[in-house]
């Protein structure tokens, strides 16, 4: 991604990248004429996007290799051995193939019908539409008057747009687990759950192409130590930034605990560990300034 690409901002505060040569970059703008397809591999997600007349067809495949670090984009995708027919696209048995193969049957197909004839497809990384509850493998005890920075990974969603900004849909890279965040099973909200090692030092192993990292600084301003069993990250307020190597980041988040209240402050630039990162997508919700919340809604 060159400097000009980084500067090309358009609607939704999105930077368009047409350079997919970098190893981990899978987003950008692609041209897929009618009758052709593009194949994208983003960690555990493999999708084939086929442009048909008045239709975008998205086939979600289930790769067997289990490799979560593979990133590839093939546009146009290599042609299939057999010509595509309506039966083969809908996975109906035919005379030549009475039983579709097992992999094909596991493919999930989503069809987006459109009046537009644009061949332009944009793929962007976006953050989940709900709060992400991150639970460290082992609880962390944060001593009084101590500040610690945790690196927390959130699952990424793939946003498909036709033309410049007409949305087709969002796909989670890996189906997320849901969790209930609330004082009891009657009141609360649904969130997405994820696990982290609670890394205090950033290393390459913690970065993956399908996760968006957030540097969460937790400051215990109270006089008592507190045990941090989980962190609830309001990702709807966060943007996605891409660093030089295609790693995804959000703004740094600071959570201050003082008594029964916790204050959360979202930064307005990429984290210091990714100084040259460029904003790729903006937040779903826009709120200014710090936000006070009950302690239990951010940590436990």
């Amino acid at each position: 991604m060159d400097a000009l690409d980084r500067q090309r901002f358009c609607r939704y505060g999105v930077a368009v990248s047409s350079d997919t040569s970098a190893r981990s970059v899978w987003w950008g703008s692609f041209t897929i004429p009618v009758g052709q397809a593009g194949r994208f591999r983003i960690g555990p997600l493999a999708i084939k996007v086929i442009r048909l007349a008045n239709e975008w067809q998205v086939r979600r495949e289930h790769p067997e290799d289990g490799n979560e670090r593979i990133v590839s984009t093939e546009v146009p995708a290599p042609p299939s051995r057999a010509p595509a027919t309506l039966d083969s696209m809908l996975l109906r048995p035919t005379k030549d193939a009475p039983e579709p193969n097992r992999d094909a049957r596991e493919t999930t197909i989503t069809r987006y019908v459109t009046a537009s004839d644009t061949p332009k497809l944009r793929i962007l990384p976006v953050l989940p539409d709900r709060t992400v509850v991150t639970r460290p493998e082992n609880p962390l005890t944060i001593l009084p008057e101590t500040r610690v920075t945790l690196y927390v990974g959130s699952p990424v969603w793939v946003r498909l747009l036709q033309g410049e900004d007409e949305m087709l849909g969002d796909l989670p890279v890996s189906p997320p687990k849901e969790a209930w965040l609330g004082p009891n099973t009657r009141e609360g909200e649904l969130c997405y759950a994820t696990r982290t090692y609670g890394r205090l030092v950033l290393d390459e192993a913690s970065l993956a192409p399908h996760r968006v990292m957030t540097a969460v600084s937790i400051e215990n301003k109270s006089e008592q130590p507190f045990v941090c069993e989980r962190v609830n990250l309001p990702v709807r307020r966060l943007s996605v930034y891409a660093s030089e190597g295609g790693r995804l980041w959000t703004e740094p988040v600071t959570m201050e605990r003082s008594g029964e209240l916790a204050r959360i402050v979202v930064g307005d630039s990429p984290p210091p560990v990714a100084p040259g990162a460029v904003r790729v997508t903006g937040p779903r919700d826009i709120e200014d300034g710090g936000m006070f919340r009950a302690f239990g809604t951010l940590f436990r």
Partner: protein
Amino acid sequence: MNQQQVMRAVDFFTTDRLVDGVRAIALFFITALFASLLGRWVRRLVALRGDMQRALLVSRLVTWSFLALGLAGALEEMGFKLNAVLGAAGVLTVAVGFAAQTTLSNLISGFFLFGERPFRVGDLIEVDTLLGEVLSVDMMATTLRTPDNRFVRIPNELVLKTKVTNHTRFPLRRLDLTVALGHHEDFGAVRALLLDVADKNTLCLAEPAPTVFIASMGESSAQVQLWLWTRTDQLQALRASITAEIQAALAASKRATAAAS
């Protein structure tokens, strides 16, 4: 028509009675218009809180109350003595009340159901032993659609008297499953297997966390209880998927044990 009759008619239309009649009609229609407008406004106001059924009931009550007031005012204007009318109405009400005890009981029960709101349209409820989705809560009866697509009308009096279980009141439901464990089997291994299956199933919530424990000890086996939480609308999907996954995991575990030994 002879002259005398004509004179009598002219007298009638020029006396105060005609003026009173016109005033009574005007009063009634103005009140009716006001009642209708007020009813619509109240319905919109209550519907803003997302409860259409209550909005309809409240707006009807408001409209009919104002119409009754308008009618009473109009009758007063026309010279009727309302005390006598209300007295007669009281006697009539007692007579009708005796004759229609069941109807009135259902009607009053309907009011209590509207006030108490133990369920709403669309909820899955169990009235005594009858399970069904609530189609409507009317003044006289509650109607349900059973899972095998039958229509059931239950008088409101019966609903109020009977135990009612609302299966969809809260956003989450717990699914309880029991697995038999032989005394020679390792509870720790089965527990780990069940929790792993629950972790891989995306319909099962991560929090509240799944729970596995021995519920009872029999002579030849123990009953292992698995508690899983899910969204209320996904309970059946979780039940269908997780039982098959547990069965497959247990079978695979037994095959692996047999191959190792």
